[in-house]
C-alpha cells in the first residue's frame, strides 16, 4: 500500500513538473515585443499626388464608447512624431485653414467592456468624435473601406487616420486613405511614441510626396 501511494505521489509530482516547465508565450514577451503595428491603405491612390498636410491639435479619446478630446504629454508626442514622419516623407505641414491635401486624426481607443475591437466598429461613429466641420467640410460623411480582423484587447489601441481632403469637394466625402493602428502593452508612452510611429511609416514605403 505504501509503495502505491509513493507511486501516485511521484506521478503527480512529475505531471506538475512537466506542465509547469512549459513556456508561456505571453509571459515571455517584453512590452515592446507585445505590440503590433498594422497599416492599411487605399492602393488605388497615388500618394505622391498629395503634397501638403495638416494634423489635428488634439487627440480623440474613446473610452468604452464615450468620446472626448484630450491633449496630454503623450498625445503631443504622438502628434509631433507623425508631423516629423510626414515631413521626412516630403509632405509640407500647413495650417488646416490653408487647404491641406491630407488631414490626419489621431485617436486613442479604450474598450474594456466588450474586450473586442474591430476597425469597422470604431469607424461607424467616426463623424461623432471627429466632426467633419473641423476639416472645413461640415455636412460631409467620412468614408473608410477598411475592416480589421478582431483582436482581443488588453490595454488599448492608437489609431492614426489619413484623410483625403484634396478630393473631398469632388467626391462629397472624406475618404480615409491610410490607417496605422498600434496595439499591445505600454502604447501610451511619450518616450516610445516616436519609435512606434516610425514603425508605421517605415512599413508604408509608398507614403512619398515625390
Amino acid at each position, binding site marked *: 500500500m505504501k509503495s502505491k501511494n509513493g*507511486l501516485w505521489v511521484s506521478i503527480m509530482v*512529475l505531471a506538475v513538473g512537466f506542465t509547469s516547465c*512549459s513556456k508561456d*508565450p*505571453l509571459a*515571455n*514577451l517584453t512590452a515592446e515585443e507585445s505590440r503590433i*503595428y*498594422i497599416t*492599411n491603405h487605399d492602393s488605388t491612390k497615388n500618394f505622391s499626388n498629395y503634397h501638403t498636410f495638416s494634423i489635428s491639435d488634439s487627440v480623440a479619446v474613446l473610452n468604452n464608447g464615450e468620446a472626448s478630446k484630450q491633449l496630454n504629454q503623450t498625445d503631443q508626442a504622438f502628434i509631433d512624431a507623425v508631423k516629423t514622419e510626414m515631413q521626412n516623407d516630403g509632405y509640407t505641414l500647413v495650417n488646416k485653414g490653408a487647404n491641406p491635401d491630407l488631414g490626419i486624426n489621431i485617436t486613442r481607443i479604450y474598450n474594456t467592456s466588450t474586450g473586442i475591437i474591430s476597425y469597422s466598429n470604431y469607424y461607424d461613429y467616426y463623424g461623432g468624435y471627429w466632426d467633419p466641420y473641423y476639416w472645413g467640410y461640415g455636412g460631409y460623411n467620412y468614408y473608410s473601406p477598411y475592416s480589421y480582423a478582431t483582436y482581443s484587447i488588453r490595454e488599448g489601441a492608437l489609431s492614426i487616420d489619413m484623410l483625403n481632403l484634396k478630393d473631398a469637394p469632388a467626391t462629397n466625402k472624406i475618404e480615409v486613405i491610410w490607417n496605422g493602428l498600434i496595439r499591445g502593452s505600454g502604447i501610451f508612452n511619450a518616450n516610445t511614441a516616436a519609435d512606434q510611429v516610425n514603425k508605421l511609416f517605415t512599413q508604408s514605403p509608398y507614403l512619398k510626396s515625390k
Partner: protein
Amino acid sequence: MKKRFVILMTVCAVCFIGLSASAQEKFKMELSYNVSVPVGSFKNDYIGKTSFRGGTGMISYTFNPKFSLGLSSGYQNYYQKYGRQLYKLDGNQTVSAVLTNSMDIVPILFRGTFYPLGTSTSMVQPYVSAGAGVNLINYGQYLGEFGGTESSTAFAAQAGAGIKIPFGKGPTQNGIKIGATYNYSNYNNNDVSKLNNVGINAGVIFGLK
C-alpha cells in the same frame, strides 16, 4: 479513422485479456526525461528549436522476459519566438509583429518493448520498441500579445531503441535506461503538416508489485 480505431481497440483488448489472465505477473514502470528535436514540416514551418521540456511515463506488463506491452503517456512543450518582422495580411494590410509559436503534445500510446537478451544478466541490455496511439495537441500562435491556442487530436506512432542497465545482479526489472525514439504524428492544420520529431530520453525502470 475507423481502421485506426479498430486497431487501437484490438490492442486494448489484447492488453486487457493479458492483464486479467495472469494478475500475479510483474508490472513495471518507466519514468524518463525527454528531449525532442522537431523534424520536417514541424521544424521548417513552425518550430525549429529543440525542446528540453518534456517527459514520459509508462506502465507496462511483462509477458515474458523478452516482451512487455504497456500504456505510455507524457508531455512535451515546444516554443519559439521570432524577432520582429513584417507580415502581409488580407488586402493591403501589413502588420509588424513578434511572432510566437508554441506547441504542447501529450501522447497516449500503446507501446511494446522487446529485449532480445531476455533473462540474460548482461550489464547492458538493448531493447527496441514500437507504439501507436493518439497525440493531444495544443497549438498556439501569437502576433505580439494577440493570438490564441487551438486543441486537437491526431494519430501518433513511435519507433524506438535504446539500452537498459539493470541494478545489481540477476534478472531484475529495476534499472536505468537511455534511448531514442522517432515520433510520427499526423497533423494538418495552420500550415503545419505532420509533427514528426526525434526524441532522446533517459530515465528509470522499476518493478511494481
